[in-house]
């Protein structure tokens, strides 16, 4: 699903009340529908039993190390920035059994891979930055390299309803990373939310045959040129309203020669090495495995869980951790995310969602750290 959606078909208008029908038709088609919901003072991603659970009228106020919900003047459902969770929690679960094994009477053992869930997932409200994040994880965990993986099978059945971003937050910089505010490709349906006095409508475009098929049951009318202009204008304006900027050009080369920068020590003096940034990041993919047995010792299991390059154990080899200082661990995270990710997977690992800024307990701002490194080491030309 979610084939390339470069060629745009006709656009339609869906009244906000029509989201209920969209949700229900996805459920009827066998999807577990997941979308944003207000839970415990944050907008998180959860299964939605009805479209009413979407965060209508909620916005967020973001800051380094700060996240607060606020009431909006309108009823917009998707005018909130990235929350603490991301779609990776469904496609690449935080903890997952890989296999189980039991000893056989002849002293050997027999192992079976864990049964993969066959649930089909539909994601509603995927922001352009997060859509790109899913594609970046595909590059690491999915079809190109591991076509037989459970990630690939889970991913292949996902239905994606993306939403163009019309209201970036204070910590957003997707424009700098080239990932938004307009969704590029890879969605089944794309919504643009229009709110105004007495008006709450979505412009709907299909990006795949599956998306096209879903349109059939909706209360749609062709989008008029006025609505299309409003939709395009609000997304274009969003590009100018990013709360943060990162000069992403030349970062791969800059970071490759950054290893002795004084800034690493400076950021390490603030960094708690808690790993929150890696958990909140929608592209961080690292995992660790744990082998466990039952009390008899005859039944063994292997579990995989998210890991963080900020953990001391992460780089453990027999003589001890390779990266024992906090400085080297922050440097590893940032140089991988923005530099060596290009070498390994052909793109940057950052989508500009701002989560690492918001969910850092001491408010370390990746855009500020990059700017400081650029100032210290000079522009991309300086090293040549």
């Amino acid at each position, binding site marked *: 699903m979610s084939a390339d959606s470069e060629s745009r078909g006709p656009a339609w208008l869906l009244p906000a009340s029509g989201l209920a029908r969209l949700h229900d038709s996805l459920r009827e088609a066998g999807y577990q529908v997941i979308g944003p919901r207000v839970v415990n003072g944050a907008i998180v991603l959860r299964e939605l039993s009805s479209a009413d659970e979407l965060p209508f009228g909620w916005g967020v106020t973001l800051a380094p190390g700060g996240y607060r919900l606020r009431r909006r003047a309108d009823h917009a459902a998707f005018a909130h920035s990235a929350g603490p969770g991301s779609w990776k929690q469904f496609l690449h679960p935080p903890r*997952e059994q*890989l*296999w189980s*094994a039991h*000893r056989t009477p002849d*002293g*050997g*053992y*027999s*192992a*079976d*891979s*864990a049964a993969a869930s066959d649930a089909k997932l539909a994601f509603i409200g995927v922001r352009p930055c997060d859509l790109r994040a899913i594609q970046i994880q595909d590059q*690491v*965990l999915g079809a190109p*390299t*591991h076509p*037989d*993986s*459970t990630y690939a099978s889970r991913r292949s059945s996902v239905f994606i309803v993306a939403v163009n971003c019309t209201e970036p937050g204070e910590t957003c910089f997707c424009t700098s990373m080239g990932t938004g505010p307009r969704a590029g490709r890879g969605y089944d349906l794309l919504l643009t939310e229009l709110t105004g006095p007495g008006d709450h409508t979505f412009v709907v475009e299909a990006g795949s045959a599956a998306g096209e098929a879903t349109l059939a049951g909706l209360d749609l009318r062709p989008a008029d040129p006025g609505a299309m202009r409003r939709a395009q204008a609000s997304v274009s304006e969003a590009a100018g309203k990013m709360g943060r900027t990162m000069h992403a050009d030349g970062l791969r080369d800059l970071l*490759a020669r950054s*290893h002795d920068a004084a800034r690493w020590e400076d950021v390490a003096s603030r960094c708690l090495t808690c790993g929150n940034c890696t958990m909140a990041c929608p592209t961080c*993919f*690292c*995992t*660790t*495995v744990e*082998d466990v*047995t039952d009390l008899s*010792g005859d039944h*063994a299991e*292997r579990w*995989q869980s998210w*890991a963080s*390059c900020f953990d001391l154990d*992460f*780089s*453990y*080899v*027999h003589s001890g951790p*390779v*990266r*024992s*200082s906090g*400085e*080297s661990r922050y440097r*590893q995270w940032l*140089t*991988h995310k923005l*530099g*060596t990710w290009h*070498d*390994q997977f052909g793109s940057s690992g950052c989508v500009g969602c701002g989560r690492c800024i918001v969910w850092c307990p001491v408010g370390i701002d990746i855009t500020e750290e990059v700017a400081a490194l650029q100032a210290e080491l000079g522009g991309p030309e300086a090293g040549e």
Partner: protein
Amino acid sequence: MTMSQVPVSYRVSERQDETHDTVTLTLEPAGAPLESSKPGQFMMLYAFGVGEVPVSVSGPPGAAGLTHTIRAVGAVSRALCSAAPGQAVGVRGPFGTSWHESDAFGQDLLVIGGGIGLAPLRPAVLAALREPGRYRHITVLIGARSPAELVFAAEYERWRDSGATVEVTVDRADAGWHGHVSVVTQLVGPSGLDPRRTLALICGPEVMMRLTAQTLLAAGMTASQIRVSLERNMQCGVGECGHCQFGPLLLCRDGPVVSYHAAAPLLSIREL
């Protein structure tokens, strides 16, 4: 996860003590064998209920069974080292890059191993000695802390008989030792190195590999003629888990065998 994540059951068919803490195990598949490995590649070995560690293949390439030389340094390697014949060991692999020792056809092949670092080099030595005529010279330089810590010591004579020059040195001699006492780099000078026509394969502790490579560079070799085998934490073996990050490289995928041309600038960075 992928199917390659489930360990395949093998049995220990032979067990040979190498040193006080190092054992060579030969494993035979309990069912269908895994794809055969190339010299320099590694397997993930699973001790039932304990865990899994990466271990280079130390046996001859193309054999039906698998040979691994394991040093007891942690819970899993201790469990593997104490495995008796008949015991089950799980195996995944083969993973990673290989030495490509045949790139030295028509030239000199220089193999330099430090301590248990000789283990991943042994398949390349054995492969080269099957067709020694295709190389000008095959030289194996071996260093260890002490005579008791030499691995495969019983084989050196056989390697010489097959056409290799084998020189051995130790950091500290004991009463029965009449050979060289030095660091392994000091064997390079007398080995008759022809820097323009040599491919060097090095494995050992990181500092030993760096000093050895520097010696070879000083003798006139280029970094692209030198290959090293690097180690980092490895868990999945397929570049998914992220533990083997080494700058731009994922060592389970882009390594363990890496050209010194790529490795040298990375090895100079602390805590990379």
